[in-house]
């Protein structure tokens, strides 16, 4: 049985012997921006500066504890992807952004060897120009409540001792050695923790169903099949803090009496796959997983199952089919997985973020946990913030936070079509990815939680959050998401298979100017039918982007249909024909050839086309001898 206290203490002792700790973000975003090269450059620079550097802190044996000038790690995602690659220097609390390998020498000589701050590398507010030293000051971080993500981007995902030193695995040990299954279930019911995968079902209740279900074998499954375009919460946690997920699964296993677990990750997340595999191996070697969990004689084994990347496999019954080696298609519920799940056995299935929160809930205790968030949605939620917003990245806020706070404060404001911060350019926020809805200015002050979003036709979903400015065409946005769901529909149930395809066709008609008002009515009716009758969550939520844009941006749809005009000029076919006043000489030829009288203007003065009358026949374009019309 691993002695967690001893591991923690020895790690802290060894750590205390290191002067500086340099944490380089090795999350997928920063790696793509070259953070691994930065890592090597800093490591070389430290060595060149004659300092002693280690990248793997040996803490097990006090005899091996050594003094190091610098302890370097590559962490998981630190969240502020916008300014990656990120480099943090502790204990100074410095964070540098947009770091290039060329900066390494200066960072080492000034901020590692000494305690100086390099002004040009710290985050500067794009409007005020004010500089911020590190996460404790940067508004992007200070406005957040990083709970599940607290250690993600800070601990070394490859070093279990660091996880333990941060309090890891103590909760799981307590669950196994000091609590009964009922007590564990009750604790989570009391905490009000709700599933972060989209459904928002009470985690404790779900566990309790599985606990009570009869079965000679039970399973715990971690759903890591994150598939929303632009969402990367689960990926970041698996990459940055895999042990937190394992610990969550252990507690779930204790709660229901499971002895086997699966982590289902899409193979498009190779780093997440290898990190979780490695972490499972380490935990098994330590006796945390295996046949004798924490010396209790109980067993819990975890296997990693790589999915092929079908979006529908994130739906729990489809995911279970996929693990069983069958086609990833959903099945009707009931029976729910808690009654009859993997291989017909009672199964608990939770998503990565939920499982990562599980140990934290136990560490904090249910009462403390409930203090954050709203009454019905306690705690925090991570969102992947992207789109027309100054600060993109991975954020975590308490439930009840408003969109205004997220977009304007954490996000640093809306970017207009010229890339300038201009909050007046705000148009909509798409929450919950392709299953979510579009929210508008009127929802800016809505406190976000599971129920408030559901009530206005959106959903928390997995937590994708795309900010859109006023140059975005909402019809085109709906069409984009529809293309995705239509493509990802498994094709099993009729409404999702045929309905999404028909909806996509209709949306394409709208963007091409080939639709009528009847199209919009049929689009809405089809959307409602698909939502009401589809077999699984994918189909039930697929119409959300369409229905919510139809609800809040109906005038924009109508402009496409009635006036054959795309107000944001995104839909090529509906972009108005215009006369360049610089070139036009006012010869009046165009006015004379226009069959519908859409062109006006005086002789020898630039003419104008009224887009509401124009039928885009092109007669004026061919008639103009000066090529002024396009």
């Amino acid at each position, binding site marked *: 049985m691993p002695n967690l206290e001893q591991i923690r203490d020895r790690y802290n002792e060894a750590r205390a012997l290191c002067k500086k700790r340099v944490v380089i973000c090795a999350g997928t975003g920063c790696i793509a921006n070259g953070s691994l090269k930065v890592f090597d450059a800093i490591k070389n620079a430290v060595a060149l500066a004659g300092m002693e550097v280690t990248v793997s802190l040996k803490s097990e044996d006090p005899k091996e504890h050594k003094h190091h000038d610098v302890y370097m790690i590559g962490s998981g995602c630190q969240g502020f992807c916008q300014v990656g690659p990120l480099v943090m220097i502790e204990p100074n609390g410095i964070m540098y952004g947009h770091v290039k390998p060329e900066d390494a020498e200066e960072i080492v000589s000034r901020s590692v060897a000494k305690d100086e701050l390099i002004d040009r590398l710290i985050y500067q507010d794009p409007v005020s120009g004010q500089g911020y030293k590190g996460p404790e000051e940067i508004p992007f971080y200070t406005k957040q409540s990083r709970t599940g993500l607290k250690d993600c981007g800070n601990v070394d995902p490859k070093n279990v001792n660091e996880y333990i030193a941060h309090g890891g695995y103590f909760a799981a040990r307590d669950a196994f050695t000091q609590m009964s299954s009922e007590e564990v279930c009750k604790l989570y019911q009391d905490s009000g923790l709700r599933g972060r995968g989209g459904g928002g079902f009470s985690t404790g209740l779900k566990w309790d169903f599985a606990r009570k279900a009869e079965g000679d074998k039970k399973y715990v499954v971690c759903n890591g099949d994150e598939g929303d375009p632009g969402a990367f919460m689960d990926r970041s946690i698996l990459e940055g803090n895999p042990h937190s997920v394992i610990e969550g699964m252990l507690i779930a296993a204790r709660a229901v009496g499971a002895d086997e677990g699966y982590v289902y990750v899409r193979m498009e997340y190779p780093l997440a796959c290898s990190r979780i595999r490695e972490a499972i191996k380490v935990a098994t070697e330590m006796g945390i997983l295996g046949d004798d969990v924490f010396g209790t004689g109980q067993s819990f084994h975890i296997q990693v199952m790589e999915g092929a990347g079908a979006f529908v496999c994130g739906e729990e019954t489809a995911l279970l089919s996929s693990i069983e080696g069958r086609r990833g*298609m959903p099945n*009707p519920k009931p029976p729910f997985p808690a009654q009859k799940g993997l291989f017909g056995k009672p199964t608990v299935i939770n998503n990565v973020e939920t499982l990562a929160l599980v140990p934290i809930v136990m560490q904090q205790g249910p009462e403390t946990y409930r203090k954050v968030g709203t009454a019905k949605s306690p705690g925090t939620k991570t969102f992947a913030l992207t789109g027309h917003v100054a600060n993109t990245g991975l954020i975590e806020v308490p439930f009840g936070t408003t969109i205004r706070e997220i977009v304007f404060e954490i996000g640093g404001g809306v970017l207009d079509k010229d890339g300038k911060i201009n909050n007046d350019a705000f148009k909509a926020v798409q929450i919950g990815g392709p299953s979510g809805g579009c929210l508008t200015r009127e929802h800016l002050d809505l406190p976000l939680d599971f129920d408030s979003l559901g009530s206005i036709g959106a959903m928390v979903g997995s937590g994708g959050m795309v900010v859109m400015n006023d140059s975005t065409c909402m019809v085109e946005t709906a069409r984009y998401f529809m293309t995705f769901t239509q493509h990802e*529909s*498994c094709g099993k149930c*009729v*409404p999702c298979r045929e309905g999404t395809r028909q909806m996509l066709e209709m949306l394409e008609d709208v963007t091409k100017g080939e639709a009528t008002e009847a199209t919009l009515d049929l689009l809405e009716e089809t959307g409602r039918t698909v939502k009401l009758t*589809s077999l699984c969550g994918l189909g039930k939520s697929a119409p959300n982007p369409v229905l919510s844009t139809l609800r809040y941006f109906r005038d924009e749809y109508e402009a496409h249909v009635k006036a054959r005009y795309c107000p944001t000029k995104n839909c090529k076919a509906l972009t108005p024909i215009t006369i360049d006043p610089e070139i036009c000489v006012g010869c009046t030829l165009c006015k004379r050839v226009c069959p519908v009288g859409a062109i006006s203007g005086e002789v020898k003065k630039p003419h104008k086309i009224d887009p509401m009358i124009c039928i885009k026949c092109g007669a004026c374009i061919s008639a103009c001898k000066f090529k002024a019309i396009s």
Partner: protein
Amino acid sequence: MEKLVYINDRPVVWEGETNVLDLARKAHIDIPTFCYHSDLSLYGACRLCMVEVEGRGLVTSCSTEPFEGMRVKTHTQQILQLRKTIVEMLLANHDQECPKCSRANDCKLRDLSNRLSIDEVRYRRTRDFKPMDLGSECLVRDPNKCVLCGDCVRFCDEIQGIGVIDFARRGQDVNVAAAYGKSLQQVDCVNCGQCAAVCPTGAIVVKPHIDKVWEAIYDPQKTVVAQIAPAVRVALGEMFNLPPSELNMGKLVAALRVIGFDQVYDTAFAADLTVVEEATEFINRKSNGGKLPIFTSCCPAWVKYAEHNYPSLLENVSSCQSPQQMFGSIAKEVLPEKLNVKKEDLVVVSIMPCTAKKYECKRPEFIHDGIADVDWAITTQEIGRMIKEAGIDFASLEPESMDLPLGFATGAGVIFGNSGGVSEAVLRYAADKFNIPVPESIVLQEVRGVSGMREAILADGNLKMAVVHGLRNAQELCDKIISGEAEYDIVEVMACPGGCTGGAGQPIVHSRKQRHKRTEQLYHADRVMTLHRAQDNPFIQELYKSLLEEPNSDKSHHLLHTAYKHRKRIDDDELSLSTGEGKDRCKIRVCVGTSCYLRGSQDILAKTLQMVEDNAWGNYFDIAATFCSEKCDKGPNVSVGETVIHKAELSQIKDLITKEAQRRVK
């Protein structure tokens, strides 16, 4: 205490029905559905059976368990509108060529569209034409009519244990396909046709051979004789809305004569012959320590299934041809002289409840010097259509009797059409030998029943029989026999539910009850006959005297017995992955059959491809994945040029490839 559920505010007694849909049927409400099938697993895909449950809202009735006091509405305004919209969606993706469809009068989609008064499809037609699968001798698959309910997929997998078809691709591209998109005849389809029987539309239908039969009838050179299988007589009436009756057989004989058949005979005659041959074969095996259990061989779907999946049991399968083939063999032997016609001008048409019979009569072992024992096999459905084509008022025909001698049968041959019938007929033959008391009624209840797997232990344990229908059950039994867990003397296997009466060539049934009626009717037909034991058939006795000498004689072996062979599951030996352009190319084949795959052949294949690509040797090699080299114990099996490597290892393969490549580089 009765438990009540309220359906549309009217109380219905809930007696353990597992879902609301079944309960509603009991309450005389037919909730529409494509994918609910009481014999198959729950699928929940068509979404048409939605109902409103108080407190729960809209739910699919197929997947919702009733509870006491439950209040269900089955046809609210919203529900009807949703159903209409869903059917419209299906129609937009359907070819809507109803007048040209053989299932036109029996199509659930058409029926539902009509029931829901759909007079307009508001959606654009989204269907792209998809090619039909015309390769099979027995079935035609038309994806353009498929509603993707999955009934065929589940039947093939769950009841037949084969899984020859499954869904491929996703979203709008999803379709039902055989492995690698091949035609049914290239894979391990056994032609049982149950996929067609459960298909709610015309997406899988029996391949028609009506034209061939008409052609023969219209040819003045030809003498066309028919043989009618036992199960046909109890089902054909359904196509003419007639109640089940033995009189329908006489009407069918009359109809065939009107159509222009020269002679009308009974396959049950050949079934009597099969009883004598098979029982004799069994008795010989039993007394000489031959291979037991003996498996029946009447069902061509089962025979093909065994050839694909149980090569080790092929010696156990009776060498007797099926009644259809015995009939053909005897007919081509004796009729030319009797009817004064040249052998090549004699056309034997069998009328069968079965789709697999179409395949069976084309098996090369039943074709001699270009002359097939049975020229054409058509189904009950097809003969019904021929009668309609000819404009015959079937219902008012006067019954006629069959021609002799091949039209005379005993009850033993007739009950072949029921699951358990072959066993009972053999028992009636061999009862004396085993001292089994045969009741006055001659009914041997031990082997009758509806269960898919039954067993009977007779003669004080000296005779153990098993009767199975449905190939999944056969599979289970075979595995037990191989493992030694089960021991039998005789095993009767029929692929279709209930045996031949439930064959896929029969008119489409909509309930198990309807099928059970056929079974009862066939037993009734036996009861009203004068003779019940095959050996009592005077024409069979005569046949032995004049031609066959005695059961299992050399002559009868020549005419009435056959042999089986192991068949690959995929009728194609390779899948080309990389083809070079060089002249002297070396062929690399890697087996990716299950056994080799499990031993790592996929990895070898991937790395081989990679190696060839990395070295730019593409033009020197043709690389193909092969399907089962059938040396499974020696896998992975790989061949490089002429060299065959068993238990292949990557390094070894790489060396060989390098050598071959270097030779060509020079």
